[in-house]
Structures are given as structure tokens and as C-alpha cells.
């Protein structure tokens, strides 16, 4: 059944049962190409979609989702959401919104991935593998040589006149290499996200991953101590993303964030600013409206160390008596509305990474962390993670470091930021997309030998 017909049935059935209702849909088209030993090791294509229905009855919101579009599914969606709503007993109301007065317009960012044929994409990836293997004889194999592209769209329709659709897309190249010598094995990786193949330099991707792996061969732990530390931009972006639930107003209202009642207060060093830029050209979380239909907006969340605002979805805004900030997002049609950002950036400073390094006598450059999903807790702010990087001695990067951890607390780390670099790098996009320059910390606990 086509989606418009499905939508009509859902609205017809839903109007009888609910005071207000909404139908949300994601569509996704993906292609992935994995190359190994000069062959296409894995080739995957997919088209899929899912819908979520939610309805408000007597102030209670019920949700249901489906991946099939037929009349039986339409009936089941409405009936299940109606049944689910009955059991909600929170006193916090979840609103269904009228369209915002104004939305930003995206006329800059275009996805040009389709301008290149699949055969050309395959050849490019084979060339990437070959290049990486040829750069250094210590590169013995590839962990991954992956191209993935996606086209996604979201649509929202509600009983208050909301009727919106937005599409986006892009591509990712991920390369992981293994370097070996007589004594050691190390890996290196490189990641690129792009919308236009003219931005892609195969040689550069191969070099980045190969250099990382080779330069870490025979890296050793250092002595446990507090060190002046530079965290590379993409690593800091990942850490900020993992702690980002703490900026959710809903979490603060529920006693799950230490930033509760901190708006207007200094929470970070004065060189530190976090902003949300929904139409940032470098970002891959482009969005002009959130998953409740509210306009997204450019804003400074933290400005020169001061917390300007938390992020409000509809429910949290209503409870606090403020306007929503366009941050009511879902993980997917399978989950309820929570709070997320679009493109979240740490504002860049003036010094290059080299200049930051040159001012340190004895310190550490962290280039990789592992255990982001387990080694940190957004409620306590505590973190302890496996790390890799380089020793900085007398203003120069010297030896590789491996087998250490970095540990501390997010909130005190923000106060310890001394300098912010000019070299912005992004993490992997996951609904939101986080970017940051290299960050220099006065001190960080490193555990090693």
C-alpha cells in the first residue's frame, strides 16, 4: 500500500480515538562496499522504511511503530498506541505542536554522491586498499576498507496542521590497517564523511591510517601521573557526545543531570564555547526541524564557559514554561522522543595543533580512546578510558604511548581547559554530529606502568 493511503487510514482511525495525533516516518536507502584483497568482499544494498504513530488522549501519550504498510498494520498502530496511552501516569505532559512560525532554509548543502557511478566507487575503494598496502611494508593487512552511502528522509504529519518532509544523505569512507614488525602489532584508521567526491583524496586517507599504525608500533605505557594533555578534536568530540545527555533539560528535571539549576553559571573555562549549528556545512546532522516538528535553531549552549541554556524538547519546555529549543529528537521511529542536538561544535580557537604542542615541556597528546560506551557515566560525570597517543617532550611529539588509561570527571575537565585549537575534526555521525578542535587540558590523570 502506498504511504499516502496508509496515512489517510491512520488519521481516519486515529481521529476517533485521540485528541491529537501524529504520524512520523523514516525512509532509508543505503549502499555499502567492502573491499578485501582486491575483491568486493561484501556488497550490500537496502531500501527500508518505518513509521511511528503517537496519539494524545486526556493528556497521555501512547506510541506504536511498524515496518509494514497495510491496513492491518494501520489498525494495529492506532489500537496499540491507544492501549499504551492508558498506562502513562507521568504528570509531565507531552504536547503535539502546531508548525513553528519560521524554519531555517537549506539551500547550500547538496548531496552529490549519485554523480559518481557504482563502478567508479568500487574502483576507488580498490585503489584505496592498494595504496594503503603499498605505502609501508609493515602494513600486512587491512581490517576494513569500507564505503557506505545513505539517503534518508523523515516526514511528520499531525492533527495540528504539521506537514513536513526533509531528506539528507552522504557517504563515508572508513579504512583500518594493521601494521606489524618483529615485536608488535598496531592498527590505524581514517574516516571521511562527504557529499561530493571532489572532496576525497585517496592518498591522504591511506597515509593517515598507515601513519597512525606505523607510528604506534612499539608504543609503550608511560608512568602513572597527572600530565598536561592535548585531546585531539575527533576524540574530544566523541567524549562530548557521550556526556551530552547531561545538557538535556528533561534529564535535569528528572534529577539525572548535574547541570540542573546551573543555567547562567560558569561550568567551563572561559576559552570554551559549545554551539549548535543545524545547517553547518561540515556537519552530517543537517536538520531544519526536530522530530516534534519544531524549528531547529543556531545557539550557543555554553558561551565562554557560561551555560546559556539546556536543550528542551516539547515535554521539558512545557514543564519549565519556556519555548522548545528544537531539540526533541528520537533515535529512530522505534523509540519515543528524547533530547538530542543536530550539529554540535566546540568553537575553534587560534592556535594550530603544532602550536599547542610546542608550548608543552612534558605532556601527552591523546589520539584515540576506547570504551566510550562503558568507561564513562553521564550522570556522575566520571570517566576512565583506554587511550593511545604520543608523548610530548620539550615542545615536540616524541614516542608513541599505548596501554594507558585517561581518567577524570567531565565537569572538572571542562574547568581545566587551557587552550582550544584551530583544527576542527568530527566524530562519526549518529543522528547528532559532534565536531571539536584539539583541546589542551591543564592536567589529566593517566594510568600506565
Amino acid at each position, binding site marked *: 500500500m502506498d504511504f499516502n493511503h496508509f496515512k489517510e487510514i491512520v488519521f481516519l482511525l486515529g481521529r476517533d480515538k485521540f485528541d491529537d495525533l501524529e504520524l512520523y516516518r523514516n525512509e532509508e536507502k543505503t549502499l555499502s562496499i567492502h573491499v578485501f584483497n582486491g575483491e568486493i*568482499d*561484501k*556488497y*550490500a*544494498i*537496502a*531500501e*527500508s522504511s*518505518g513509521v*511511528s504513530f503517537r496519539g494524545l488522549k486526556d493528556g497521555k501519550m501512547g*506510541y*506504536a*511503530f*511498524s*515496518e*509494514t504498510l497495510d491496513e492491518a498494520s494501520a489498525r*494495529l498502530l492506532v489500537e*496499540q498506541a491507544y492501549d*499504551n496511552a492508558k*498506562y*502513562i*501516569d*507521568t*504528570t509531565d505532559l507531552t504536547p503535539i505542536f502546531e508548525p513553528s512560525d519560521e524554519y531555517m532554509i537549506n539551500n547550500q548543502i547538496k548531496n552529490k554522491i549519485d554523480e559518481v557511478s557504482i563502478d567508479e566507487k568500487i574502483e576507488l575503494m580498490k585503489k584505496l586498499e592498494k595504496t594503503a598496502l603499498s605505502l609501508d611494508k609493515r602494513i*600486512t*593487512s*587491512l*581490517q576494513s576498507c569500507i564505503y557506505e552511502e545513505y539517503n534518508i528522509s523523515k516526514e511528520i504529519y499531525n492533527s495540528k496542521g504539521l506537514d513536513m518532509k526533509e531528506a539528507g544523505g552522504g557517504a563515508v569512507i572508513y579504512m583500518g590497517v*594493521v601494521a606489524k614488525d618483529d615485536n608488535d*602489532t598496531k592498527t590505524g584508521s581514517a574516516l571521511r564523511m562527504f557529499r561530493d567526491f571532489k572532496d576525497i583524496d585517496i592518498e591522504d586517507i591511506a597515509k593517515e591510517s598507515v601513519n597512525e599504525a606505523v607510528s604506534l608500533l612499539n608504543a609503550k605505557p608511560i608512568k*602513572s*601521573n597527572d600530565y598536561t594533555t592535548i585531546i585531539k578534536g575527533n576524540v574530544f568530540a566523541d567524549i562530548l557526545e557521550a556526556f551530552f545527555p547531561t545538557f538535556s533539560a528533561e534529564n535535569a528535571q*528528572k*534529577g*539525572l543531570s*548535574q547541570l540542573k539549576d546551573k543555567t547562567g553559571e560558569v561550568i567551563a573555562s572561559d576559552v570554551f564555547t559549545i554551539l549548535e549549528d543545524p545547517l553547518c556545512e561540515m556537519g552530517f546532522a543537517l536538520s531544519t526541524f526536530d522530530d516534534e516538528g519544531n524549528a531547529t535553531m543556531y545557539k550557543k549552549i555554553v558561551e565562554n564557559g557560561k551555560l546559556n541554556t539546556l536543550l528542551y524538547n516539547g515535554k521539558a519546555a512545557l514543564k519549565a514554561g519556556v519555548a522548545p529549543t528544537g531539540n526533541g529528537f528520537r533515535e529512530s521511529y*522505534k523509540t*519515543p522522543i528524547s533530547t538530542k542536538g543536530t550539529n554540535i561544535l566546540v568553537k575553534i580557537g587560534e592556535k594550530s595543533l603544532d602550536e599547542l604542542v610546542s608550548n608543552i615541556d612534558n605532556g601527552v597528546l591523546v589520539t584515540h580512546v*576506547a*570504551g566510550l*560506551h*562503558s*568507561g564513562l*557515566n553521564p550522570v*556522575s*560525570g*566520571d570517566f*576512565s*578510558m*583506554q587511550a593511545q597517543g604520543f608523548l610530548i617532550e620539550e615542545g615536540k611529539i616524541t614516542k608513541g604511548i*599505548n*596501554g*594507558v*588509561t585517561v*581518567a*577524570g570527571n567531565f565537569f572538572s575537565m571542562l574547568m581545566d581547559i587551557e587552550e582550544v585549537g584551530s583544527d576542527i575534526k568530527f566524530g562519526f555521525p549518529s543522528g547528532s554530529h559532534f565536531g571539536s578542535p584539539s583541546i589542551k587540558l591543564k592536567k589529566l*590523570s593517566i*594510568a*600506565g*606502568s
Partner: protein
Amino acid sequence: MLNKSTVENVLNAALSRGGDFAEIFLEDKLVGNIKLIGGNIENNMTGREYGVGIRILDNFNAIYAYTNDSSEENLIKVAKNAAAALNGKDTERVLNFLKRNSTDYNPIKKNLFQVEKKDKIELLKRAYRAGKEYDPIISQVSATYLEEEQDIFIANTDGLWANDKRVRTRFTVASVANRNGEMQEGYYAPGASMGFEFYDDVNVEEVAREASRIAKEMIYADYAPSGTMPVIIDNEFGGVLFHEACGHALEAAFVSKGTSAFAGKMGQMVASPLVTAIDDGTIPNAWGTTNIDDEGTPTKRNILIENGILKSYLVDKLNGRRMNTQSTASSRRQSYKFAPTSRMNNTYIDAGKMTRDDIISNTEKALYAKKLGGGSVNPATGDFNFAVMEGYLVENGKIVKPLRGATLIGNGIEVLNLIDAVGNNLSHGQGMCGSSSGSIPANVGQPTLRVSKLTVGGRKGDE
């Protein structure tokens, strides 16, 4: 589900441009999720996931495609689009399907989706009250009830025709202790391949009190030290040690490509002789148990390491081809949206002889890691990490004081050789394991054991 002629037509379309094997995987899954925060039901979501994955193998290479539309017309279209990646010839074949019957390791007594919602909500409310009343320092309790019923159908050009039903439920509680604005969180989340009878065995009040106990214990605890030291890792979820240090690197996906530290080590001593490790997909009603894997092979008990010697990898069909070895029924996937690959089911280090008290009382100084969180590993280097949620300092054979969470790091083969005491109290914990074929339920397990040296990622100098 699909009828025989549709399956035949789709599989033949999949091989219309060459390839030597095609498979169809259909999934129909009901899911439910109720969330309570602060005593009230905040969200209540139900839904149905439905789709078909089509896979073509051509020697060592794989093509995968999926769709939500299971009409014959669409499936043939999807199969042909996938086949377009090949440029060989059509190989007409006659398919004789043999219906596979497998042992039912997960008998279900009370169908989750027929239990009244108010009974599920009552569980959440009971847990909330018990967690909150545990101690005045507990400022917030959240709890989630999860349920799912996954029906799968698999057929392939080798004549396989198989079904399986996977019923699972899990109950998670997170408690927050707040001391003058400083917060610590405790978490506990048991689950099983069971129906609602799971809650006859598992007392949700105890689950909640356990989460609150951890939060309270940790808010008063000191920071963990940093540096290398002996570590005693407790039973149950402590099994995350083996899961990360070794399990992933035994997956054929890495071994077959030479990107595992365990490649080429079959039959060799890779661990302390005290270590026997097993991956068992057949433990009755366990969180990671299925009757068949996601390629239709009946699950088994695989001895991975016996008395320190490497005995088996975890193998799926595709990577088995590269390695010239049979599947160990270890092929899994999150859903039809993922091509299957080698993964773990219920993995554990087998019981030894010592009691927990013996191990502690025979230790001069160590970190005792009582509750563990998740972890990760780089299979190529063997470098792994996993998180301690609740720790203690052991000195002169006694538990001296609580220590806050820290990550433990080490290197796979090195650490397996440093296990110098294994307890007799084997038990299993539940987790979600993420890798290239998605997020899947997996048990980890072990008895209490001691590693003579691990790096503890605390933030205090040596004590």
C-alpha cells in the same frame, strides 16, 4: 511466512547471475518497552519489525540486500538487484527443501504478549519503591521492562528450511545516589530467553535494591588507584573479561582475514592451564541461547580453550569457507537489516576449585572488581578494556574499603596467561554485544578469578 514456490523463485533469482549459494531470512518481531522514571510510567512503546534479507555467496564474497516488502514480486526484484553485482551465468537448479527440526532449548510457559500490561507495570512500580526505599541517599530510580518475540524463517539453496522463535525479556534498574549534588549511578539488568515466568524466579525488588546498593556504596567510595596491580574479578558479569580479552578475537570474521591476535594459534597454549572457556548456544532459557543460529545451523556447545589450549574458533559459513572449516553454529545478526557473521552466544570461563573467600584471603594486595560494566577490544592487537562499576581494595587477604569505578585494560593473550586463580562459583550475566552484524543478546560468565597484573585506570597515584 513464505510459501515454497516463492522461496524457490526468489533463491533462483538471487543466483541468476552466478554465485554458489543463496539464502533468504525472514523476520517478524514484536517488541515492547515500558519505561518508568521517578515512580511514574513515562513511555510505553510497542511495535513490529518485519523484513526479509537476501544473501548471495560467491566463493569468499557476499552480497546482501533487505526490504520490508515480502511480496514475491518485490523479493524477486530485490534478489535480482543484488545479483546485478555479479556478472556470471544463471545456474538453474532444482531445490529440495528439507524441513529442519531442532531441539527446543528455550521452552516458554507464559506468553509475554498475552500478559496484561498492568502486571508488567506493577513490576516496575514494585522495583521503584524497593529501589527508592533502600536508603535516603537514593535520589532517583529508573526502571525498564523489555520484551520481544522474534519469529524467523531461513531457507537456502543447500535445501535448508528452518524456523525459530526467540522469546526474551529483560528488566533493568538504574539508581542514582546524590550527595550534595555529586552523583553516582548503580545499575542491574537481568534477562533471559523466557516468557513472563522469568519474574517467578527473578525478584524485581532485589534487582532494584542491588542497583541502589551499588549507587550508595560508590557515593561514599574513594577513587580507584592508577597503575598495574593484581585484580580479582568477581563471577557473573565478570565474564566480560573473557568476552573482550579473547571471545571477539576468536570470531572467524577476524581470524579468517588474519586480523586476529589468535589467528594461526589452533592447538597452541594461549592461556593459563587453569582456563577452560566455552561458548554454549544451548544453555536452557539463557539470554544468548537460540535453537538454530541465524544461518539455520543447530546451536552447539563449543569448547574454545581447554586447560589453556586453543581448541576452536567461532565460525560462520562464509568465514568457514576462507578457513576451510565447518560452521560452529555461531552465525548471528541483530535483524534482517544485517548480514550474519560469527558471534558469541553464552560465553564463559568454566569453574575451577577455589572459593571466592580462598582467593581473597590468599591475596596480599589487589583491586577486587565486584561489578563490571561493558567493554571493547581491538581484535588485531588484542588490546581490550572493560569497566568496573563497583570496586574494593583488598589488603592482606581482607576487603579494606570501597573504590569507585575505573576501566581495566590489558592485552588478550597476555592476560589469559596471567590468570592465576579460578573459583568454583560460575555464574552468568546478561549483556548486549555490538559488532558488524549489529547488537545481539549475549551472556558472559565466569567464576571469581584473579589476574596477577592488569592496568587499573583510576585517578589516584599508587597507594
